């Protein structure tokens, strides 16, 4: 049997001990010179660089400005993925023929890592805004589609039978039966999409971009400015976490409203 749950105090103390060990090990490796500080700056160096970058431009913009331009592409890409993926998924869940047509295509593309779309994205939409958006789209699209599809496909059959019995036309069936029934699944998919989209954005900006956090990190890597690279990682982590927390809140609120969770 697994050990019983720990008390609050013990959890907090052990957690702090873990954090302290982590920061301690990091500082020790850096300060002692086991790893040259040039390659592994200490936590304080990274933190101060982070603060510095908030106001001082690097690679053409300050960190907030880089983040803003990243976020803009990100938002476009994810919204586009949701705007296409969710309706398509719903329709596939309802129209068997569409399902049979799209599924093989989707299965064929499924194993191509989204990041492999970079060259075509650059070729088709350029490296400014369009290219990265397409890569974010490639990362965020599959969960949108799959979850909307599953949500619609596995709706309680009685609900559909009941709606049929009431003479509901197809369009109304999709909008007023399938969509609401699939909402929890769709939201869960959007959350996954948001995470994958953020990850794809970072990849895209590392490879093709002229602005954004990923671009900043590549530039910093090129000039061996490790603290800036790590500050970029932290910024990416923070924004990613924020997105996830917000979406989780939204999902929780929605599920409670639906009475799915107590």
């Amino acid at each position, binding site marked *: *049997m*697994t*050990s*019983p*749950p*720990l008390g609050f105090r*013990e*959890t907090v103390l*052990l*957690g*702090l*001990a*873990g*954090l302290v*060990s*982590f920061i301690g090990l990091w500082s020790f490796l850096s300060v002692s010179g086991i790893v040259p500080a040039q*390659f*592994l700056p200490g936590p304080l160096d990274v933190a101060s660089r982070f603060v510095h970058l908030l106001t001082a431009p690097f690679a053409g913009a300050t960190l907030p400005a880089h983040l803003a331009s990243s976020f803009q592409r990100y938002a476009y890409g994810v919204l586009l993925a949701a705007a296409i993926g969710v309706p398509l998924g719903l329709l596939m869940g309802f129209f068997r*023929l569409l399902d*049979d*047509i799209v599924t*093989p*295509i989707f299965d*064929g*593309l499924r*194993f*191509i*890592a*989204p*990041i*492999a*779309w*970079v*060259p*075509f994205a*650059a*070729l*088709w939409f350029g490296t400014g805004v369009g290219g990265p958006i397409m890569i974010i789209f490639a990362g965020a699209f599959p969960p949108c589609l799959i979850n909307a599809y599953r949500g619609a496909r596995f709706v309680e059959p009685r609900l559909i039978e009941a709606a049929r019995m009431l003479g509901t036309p197809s369009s109304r069936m999709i909008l007023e039966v399938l969509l609401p029934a699939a909402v929890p699944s769709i939201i869960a998919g959007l959350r996954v999409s948001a995470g994958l989209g*953020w*990850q794809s954005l970072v*990849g895209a900006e*590392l*490879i093709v971009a002229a602005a954004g956090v*990923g671009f900043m990190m*590549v530039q*910093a*890597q090129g000039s*061996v400015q*490790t603290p800036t*690279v*790590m500050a*970029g*990682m*932290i910024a*990416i*982590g*923070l924004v*990613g*976490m924020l997105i*996830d927390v917000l979406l989780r809140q939204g999902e929780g609120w929605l599920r409670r409203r639906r009475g799915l969770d107590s």
Partner: protein
Amino acid sequence: MASVASRRTLIGGMTVIGLVVLWFGLTTFTGLVTGARFPSPAEFWLSLKQINGRGYAGSTLASHAFHSLKLVLMGFTVAVLTGVPLGLWMGWNRRVEAFINPVFLIIRPIPPLAWIPLAILWLGLGDAAKILVIWFSAFVPSVINAFTGVRNIDKPILEAARMLGTPRLRMVREVILPASLPMIFTGLRLSLQASWTTLVAAELVGALVGVGFVLNMAQQDIYPGMILVGMVTVGILGWVTTLLLARVERRALAWNVAARD
């Protein structure tokens, strides 16, 4: 049910044929899509012949693919061999969980791809940096799912094992591990996927060989035929490794009803 399956196959086959016809139609026959945007089938074929013959980006497709495959398997293996035991340990021992969890929570939001510049700084453009980032990306799903696997073991199963007087080591080997195996495999599937994404990204950012490098060179040469060759190769490699993993899973989980259905 058989008719549903054959219907699917029929429509699926027609879809594929339709796409091929569309491809020919838009490129070769009408020229609506020019070769500068997307290769025609002929151009694709020529690119394929070129890379298989005298090679592209330094070597033949087979050796690029083999190199990428090797790195993915190495990074994936290291990640699984470290991640699964850690996840099992965290699942089994709440103290370990409490100790590691906060650190994990801090590092986890950083997408694996964001480690690429740091890995290149540390280890350069060679294989080591790639294995490192693959390890980072594949590690997390392995840990989380092994952890969840242990935590979700049916309590009566553990009680039955204790009641039978099962000693510690045997408990881990014959009860905890097999009981978590379905979840562990879920983690491995995600880890494998993450490994490929990360490797391709890392090779696109900087490499000297590999499918990602082919894509990178083709992009710089504005060579759509070769881009398509690279993408198809990435897809096939991902597909084949996923299939292999599924095979291993089916074998390892022969006892599992859910895995069979």
